[in-house]
């Protein structure tokens, strides 16, 4: 297993990036030279220098520290969304797949159709208005957006598994449906589920950043890469350097999970293909 991971370059790159990000998120109050809401560390909009390597924002906060602290929000949202989709999506998908062509399957599939046909950003905006904008509203919105994807992936994986001999054997043996689903069906769909979870984490970083950028995600003073960019956009004419670093952070984070997902797919199930839409 370990050798397979080291041989798989994509997986290894992804793992390193994500571990790096997790370490930064956990220890950001030790690594960061300043606090995320520490004002006037230098004159406002100072360009990058040795003391403030990413520069200083419009109210005199150290951009480097804020980017480091921003990884926390990103990871928290990504983990919440992934867990939510894992539970909700797997549950719906396995039911729809196992009771294929039943009324239940039809209802679940229509719900996913509806969720698919509303652009994800609209769900996020509307959810931010129903709840108070913040980590919760973003997470819930993204769970609603990405669970249907998970449900479809799990459904098709279940369809491939449910008529295999060991399931039939379990049925003849008199096991109830519930235990068959949890003991035999879900464990055998675990490959696609894990891959999809990684992809959902990468999408949720993008989603959180976009919503925060629009002002309907994480609210100040909590730093998120999206809100950093929202502030930076206002000063793009005088201080364009502010736009660069939070964006790079987003790209690196998303890339990490994308590599992880791609690598795991090669490792776990070469036949499984990426669902192309976010």
């Amino acid at each position: 297993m370990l050798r397979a991971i080291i041989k798989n370059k994509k997986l290894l790159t992804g793992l390193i990036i994500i571990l790096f990000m997790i370490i930064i998120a956990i220890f950001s109050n030790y690594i960061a030279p300043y606090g995320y809401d520490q004002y006037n560390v230098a004159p406002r909009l100072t360009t990058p220098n040795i003391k403030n390597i990413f520069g200083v924002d419009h109210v005199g906060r150290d951009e480097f520290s804020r980017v480091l602290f921003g990884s926390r929000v990103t990871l928290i949202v990504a983990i919440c969304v992934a867990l939510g989709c894992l539970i909700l999506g797997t549950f719906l998908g396995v039911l729809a797949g196992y009771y294929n062509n039943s009324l239940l399957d039809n209802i679940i599939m229509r719900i996913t159709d509806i969720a698919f046909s509303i652009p994800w950003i609209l769900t996020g905006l509307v959810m931010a208005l129903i709840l108070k904008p913040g980590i919760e509203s973003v997470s819930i919105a993204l769970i609603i957006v990405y669970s249907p994807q998970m449900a479809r992936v799990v459904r098709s994986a279940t369809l491939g598994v449910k008529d295999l001999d060991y399931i039939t054997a379990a049925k003849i043996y008199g096991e109830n449906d519930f235990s068959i689903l949890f003991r035999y069906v879900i464990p055998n769909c675990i490959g696609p589920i894990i891959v999809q979870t990684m992809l959902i984490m990468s999408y949720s970083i993008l989603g959180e950043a976009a919503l925060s950028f629009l002002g309907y995600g994480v609210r100040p003073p909590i730093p998120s890469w999206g809100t950093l960019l929202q502030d930076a956009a206002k000063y793009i004419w005088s201080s364009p350097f502010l736009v660069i670093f939070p964006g790079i952070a987003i790209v690196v984070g998303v890339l990490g999970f994308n590599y992880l997902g791609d690598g795991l797919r090669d490792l776990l199930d070469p036949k499984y293909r990426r669902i192309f839409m976010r």
Partner: protein
Amino acid sequence: MIKFILKRLILAIITLFGVSIIVFYIIHMLPGDPVTVIFGKNPDPVSMALIRAQYYLDKPVYVQYFYWLRDIVHLDFGKSFLSKIPVKEIVFERIGRTFLLAFLSMILSSVIAIPIGIITANKRNSNFDFGISSLTLFMLSIPEFWTGLILIMIFSVFLKVLPSGGYVFPNEDLIGFFKHLILPVLSISIMQTAIIIRMVRTTMIDILQQDYVKLATANGIQKKRILYLHAFRNALIPVITVIGLTLGYALGGEVVVENVFYYPGLGLLLFNSISNRDYPIIQATILIFAFLFIIVNLIVDVVYAFINPKIRYQ
């Protein structure tokens, strides 16, 4: 075949119906009373009650829904709470602009992506293939709005060659009109190009393993001829499907990009209406987005089934 089309049509209608119910109820769960927004700081109870009655806001929510649905079927989206202009006029003025943006980026990314996808499929597992696959993964990781900001930084702030946003009417200044389109189109295209490259590649790899390609190779037909004449023609249908679907996706991603560039399309309209709690506009916009998506899906499915009988008889 007719049975299949009917089935898909009914499914599409159910989906649209579901979307309309959800949109309607969600909009009404939003905090903030639109009537108070209209009247501002000194509300007059009598005219407020009048307005409420005019928009059926005094009736139960499900009654409001049926009134609203009746109007929607007649393409009457009501009047904007804020500007009092019929929503239909506001929306239809902008729908073309949004479509133009989506359409141009679709064309641009297809023109770039299709040849690259074919070459990577043909030279599978080569260094070129590996490079492109890493590049597309990278392109998929860049949020569109950041691409937009970086493009503004390069072309507007530093080089000062392109406008950083806004819109010019084509009948006033045609060159300025196109100049305003370049950066938004580019920022949407990057992610779309990556998606199409990946799709073309997987489809072409599938097709290149088919028996008829082997037969053509065994018959000694030129490799280029097989690739572009035999294989690509068969790949075209799934590829067009994907391109059609990315159009729906691009429409969603545009909401953010239109905001970055202050491009007065449907996305910016929606964003402004949400902050103003202009319910009729929010409803109309989301419904239009969903309607376009469902219609594109429906057409794609039917065309697909028309060409590939396997799907029809499932």
